[in-house]
């Protein structure tokens, strides 16, 4: 057997059931890998004691014949999830010292299934960013590299992506508000699934933009994404937007048969300046699905171009409201106050030193677009455009399209510190292929399909119909099998 930490969830599950390994051995292999991977800065709070206790409990459960597919599987948790008693600060200084007294529904579901908690993973602060550079812990680093420069693992779930790609854990949780699962998955050559809005509970997930946020699995294979989604998803009375749909057995829906499915290729995703390699990959992906018996159809999503500006109105607006709770009173950090400072100075100083530059920027933009006199011009207009973007997808599905294939990112992973932080719009362009899906609430999955000339991973994404993650995973499986992406980063860390 290969190194235990490099196993997939499915292979580890089978090995555990056959008694070929134990949860304790798997966990120790991951803990050793984590200890040796400080240079990746992926794990920012490690929980080895908790991991060993949970692994022992998992082994007892397996012995008793009460295991689920996730029992004994060591996972990493993005810092944005509240885990009881464990630092949970969404990579923000303002939540320094915060140890939740409660557990997020997603992590509780994973622990109930018997998964093992290895620790908290790096991310962009409050999930705002596409390079993991906006983190109070410093950036996570991509295990892939082609020269002496360190590359971004993407963001915001950059720590999760780096950890899974470097085999520090078998899988990780992520959250996706504008592409934060799919873009880092593409940059690191792993699978990332953003479920339908409402499929996975948001309870206990530190909020960024509540109408867009959705948690999902980041895994080594499509099958693993199916297994882990099944464990993460639930119908949750604690989240009023949790959908009342029973959770199917996603793995059993992986038939590999997509004959007769109609896959749409949206012409508006062919953007100016898109690298040849990405375009070629996209064609290759379409060919793979066609070879498997799907019908490839050119479609139009006419309002695609407006998704990015609409997103950068709506997401900051919601963020400015959600982040109003960080006031230096109830949790986290409070600034040192001067003589005579009152409560307003306390709020202003606390938030100035607690929030990083990108979070401050988005909170202020959100405040501006919601302020009297600008609400209609910006916020309401963006919400109307959002309705039109949604209509584009409704029309495509009404025309008999089953799924949509598009590139995940406009480029492969880029070097850390290469994007001008004082030009936020340039940074936002990274999200051009991913934000649309969040605006319309649909499920999407990023699958590694190839490598660029230098050898960096490139991915494609599939968009599916609401609550049809099973069908989406099945299409992704076909793409994964046809692409045969098996490359791993050479270990340099």
């Amino acid at each position, binding site marked *: 057997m290969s190194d235990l930490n490099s196993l997939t969830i499915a292979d580890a599950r089978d090995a555990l059931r056959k008694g070929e390994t134990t949860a304790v051995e798997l966990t120790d292999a991951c803990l050793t890998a984590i200890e040796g991977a400080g240079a990746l800065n992926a794990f920012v709070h490690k929980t080895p004691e908790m991991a060993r206790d949970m692994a022992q409990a998992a082994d007892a459960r397996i012995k008793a014949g009460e295991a689920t597919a996730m029992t004994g599987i060591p996972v990493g948790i993005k810092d944005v999830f509240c885990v009881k008693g464990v630092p949970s600060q969404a990579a923000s200084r303002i939540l320094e010292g915060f140890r939740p007294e409660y557990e997020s529904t997603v992590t509780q579901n994973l622990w109930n299934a018997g998964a093992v908690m290895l620790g908290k993973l790096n991310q962009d602060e409050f999930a705002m960013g596409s390079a993991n550079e906006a983190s109070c812990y410093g950036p996570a680093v991509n295990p892939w590299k082609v020269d002496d420069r360190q590359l971004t693992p993407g963001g915001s779930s950059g720590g999760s992506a780096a950890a899974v790609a470097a085999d520090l854990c078998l899988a990780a949780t992520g959250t996706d508000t504008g592409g934060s699962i799919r873009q880092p998955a593409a940059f690191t050559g792993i699978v990332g699934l953003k479920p339908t809005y409402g499929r996975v509970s948001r309870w206990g997930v530190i909020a960024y933009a509540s109408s867009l946020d959705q948690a999902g699995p980041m895994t080594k294979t499509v099958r693993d994404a199916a297994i882990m989604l099944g464990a993460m998803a639930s119908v949750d009375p604690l989240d009023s937007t949790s959908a009342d749909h029973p959770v199917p057995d996603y793995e059993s829906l992986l038939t590999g048969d997509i004959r007769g499915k109609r896959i749409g290729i949206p012409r508006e995703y062919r953007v100016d300046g898109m690298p040849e390699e990405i375009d070629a990959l996209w064609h290759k992906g379409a060919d793979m699905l066609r070879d498997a018996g799907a019908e490839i159809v050119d479609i139009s999503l006419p309002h695609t171009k407006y998704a990015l500006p609409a997103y950068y109105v709506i997401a900051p607006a919601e963020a400015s409201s959600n982040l109003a709770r960080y006031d230096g009173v109830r949790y986290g950090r409070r600034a040192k106050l001067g003589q005579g400072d009152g409560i307003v100075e306390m709020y202003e100083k606390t938030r100035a030193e607690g929030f990083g530059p990108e979070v401050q920027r988005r909170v202020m933009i959100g405040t501006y677009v919601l*302020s009297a006199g600008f609400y209609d011009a910006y916020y309401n207009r963006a919400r*109307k*455009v959002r309705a039109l973007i949604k209509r584009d997808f409704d029309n495509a599905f009404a025309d008999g399209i089953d799924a949509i294939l598009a590139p995940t990112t406009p480029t492969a992973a880029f070097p850390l510190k290469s994007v001008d932080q004082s030009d936020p719009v340039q940074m936002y362009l990274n999200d051009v292929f991913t934000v649309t899906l969040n605006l319309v609430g649909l499920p999407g999955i990023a699958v590694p399909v190839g490598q660029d000339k230098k050898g960096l991973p490139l991915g494609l994404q599939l968009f599916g119909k609401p609550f049809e993650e099973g069908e989406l995973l099945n299409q992704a499986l076909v793409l994964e099998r046809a692409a045969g992406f098996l490359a791993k980063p050479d270990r340099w860390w």
Partner: protein
Amino acid sequence: MSITEDQARKVAHLARIAVDDAALPALARELNGILHFMEQLNEVDVTGVEPMTGVTPMRLKRREDVVTTGEMAEKILSNAPDAREGFFAVPKVVE
């Protein structure tokens, strides 16, 4: 539309984020860049379109109006930067 330094100061105050006067020109410039980007939305004809509020047509869930949780003041205060005698403590609010 464009943001002046004065407006940037006002926005920062509304957001309760302290910004030094010296940082206002750069802030105004960044905010203007973002707003300029957003102005693409003005190209879209939105006549008769209702603003979207949620992605799935669903009625907000309802439940019995009963107490379901509570009696955990200690837990709620456990993460406060300053808590005294069962309360959150803040600087003096009323003169």
